[in-house]
């Protein structure tokens, strides 16, 4: 257990709306609501704490609207939290609070340290660029400037994600759903990120393609020891990839533990309901 935590989220909060004095009492897992009935404010993440260790895959499960994607977006620095901290341990051991970065610093950090894969490829890819262009864009944003090196790295990534390198100049619209997910993965991995964020990556894919994408992610995790945060409502996906899992409901973490423990000995009533509802 040599690895220390790489990312630590402390008391992270995000709400959408004006807020009112009774918001907190009227929302949360005990009330079964995220939206305040008095003022309409949606409490997407409340007092979220977690640690991500180097080289691990942490799963986040919960029903739609439980705040999983909002949390991921905040960690990806695409959404600014209302309060709380996101600590990141640099390779030299220094701690950085990512919530204090300005827009330029956040963008640079995003492009050099983080990679994200969305459920819908059009969110993660520019559909007007070629596949190679999409991967190259990430490298350019990470301040790569040598065209030859960018081209070599792109082909390398296409090989790694089992895409045919001769299709480097084809447009994403000519690719299938499973292939597009692999293009997204290639793009996300382009600048050697330390953390890969996966937002429902296999939802919407047919089962055989789903297995292939999961196998690819698992191989990447084993060979590159990359840290992953995996959001999914599919408990089977989480079981296969994540060693630890947290369960979210109405913006709160209601349970956290080893994935097999969460699935076989769930403690919280909501987790018991979630697990017993799975096919």
């Amino acid at each position: 257990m040599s690895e220390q935590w790489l990312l630590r989220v402390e008391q992270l909060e995000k709400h959408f709306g004006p807020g009112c004095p009774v918001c907190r009492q009227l929302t949360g897992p005990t009330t079964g609501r995220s939206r305040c009935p008095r003022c309409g404010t949606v409490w997407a993440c409340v007092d979220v704490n977690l640690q991500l260790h180097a080289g691990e895959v942490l799963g986040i499960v919960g029903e739609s609207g439980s705040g999983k994607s909002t949390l991921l977006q905040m960690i990806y620095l695409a959404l600014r939290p209302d309060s709380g901290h996101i600590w990141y341990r640099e390779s030299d051991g220094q701690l950085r609070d990512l919530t204090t970065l300005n827009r330029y610093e956040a963008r640079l950090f995003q492009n050099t340290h983080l990679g994200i894969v969305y459920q819908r490829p059009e969110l993660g890819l520019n559909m007007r660029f070629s596949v190679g262009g999409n991967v190259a864009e990430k490298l350019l944003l990470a301040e790569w400037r040598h065209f030859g090196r960018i081209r070599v790295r792109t082909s390398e990534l296409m090989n790694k994600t089992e895409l045919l390198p001769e299709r480097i100049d084809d447009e994403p619209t000519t690719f299938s759903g499973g292939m597009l997910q692999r293009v997204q993965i290639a793009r996300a991995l382009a600048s050697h990120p330390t953390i890969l964020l996966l937002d429902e990556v296999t939802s919407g894919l047919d089962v055989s393609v789903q297995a292939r994408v999961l196998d690819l992610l698992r191989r990447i995790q084993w060979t590159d020891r990359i840290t992953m945060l995996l959001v999914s409502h599919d408990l089977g996906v989480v079981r296969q990839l994540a060693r630890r899992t947290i369960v979210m409901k109405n913006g709160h973490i209601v349970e956290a533990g080893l994935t097999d423990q969460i699935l076989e000995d769930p403690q919280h009533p909501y987790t018991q309901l979630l697990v017993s509802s799975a096919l």
Partner: protein
Amino acid sequence: MNYLLEVKNLYKSFTLHLIDGRTITPVCDVSFSVAAGEHLLIHGRSGMGKTSILKCIYRTYVPTSGTIWFQSHQFGRIDLSRADERIIIDLREREIGFCSQFLRVLPRVSALDTICEPLYRQGLDRTAAQEIGREWLRRLGIAAELWQASPMTFSGGEQQRINLGRAFIARPRLLLLDEPTASLDETTKQVVINMIRAAQREGTAIISVSHDLTGLGVYADRQWTFPSR
């Protein structure tokens, strides 16, 4: 005597929130110990909580009370019932193996890759891992033409052998085996018994849950009948 594992006054209850918060307690005040190289076989009626004990040790279940002391190479003497999740993950990778009755693996992944998974996780090089994996598949009697096929398409007995291979391949110091010989023919059963004995000679402690008293039971150092309620 220096025990590798000491279970003391273990209780495990389940609170079923979906059925009026009802509580059931399958494991009630269980104590036993196992030394390195020893094989303890637990038998008894189905549904009495034998597997629950194994799962408490592996921490798939959170013990309600009691202690589970394990003499770890990496962490010294440690209580598995309360150890940090990160430590449990590490122990599962290097020191404690579990073979369940069911094979739960990713579809479309070959039998060879499936059996090698624990070695990949340890960071072993793919070629070296597959070399070891092939040796285990051979030993378990899985026909070579099936090595590239997914175990999801295998028969029950073959799946069981893959499952056993995955537990043995990482050479853990403590092996928890749930019905390891349940769906095996006599020849394969003997292969598995030989594997268990070989692991014992290397100092691995084995706890198995089994009804196979005439096969596996004969070779166990100790048998313990789990009390019926």
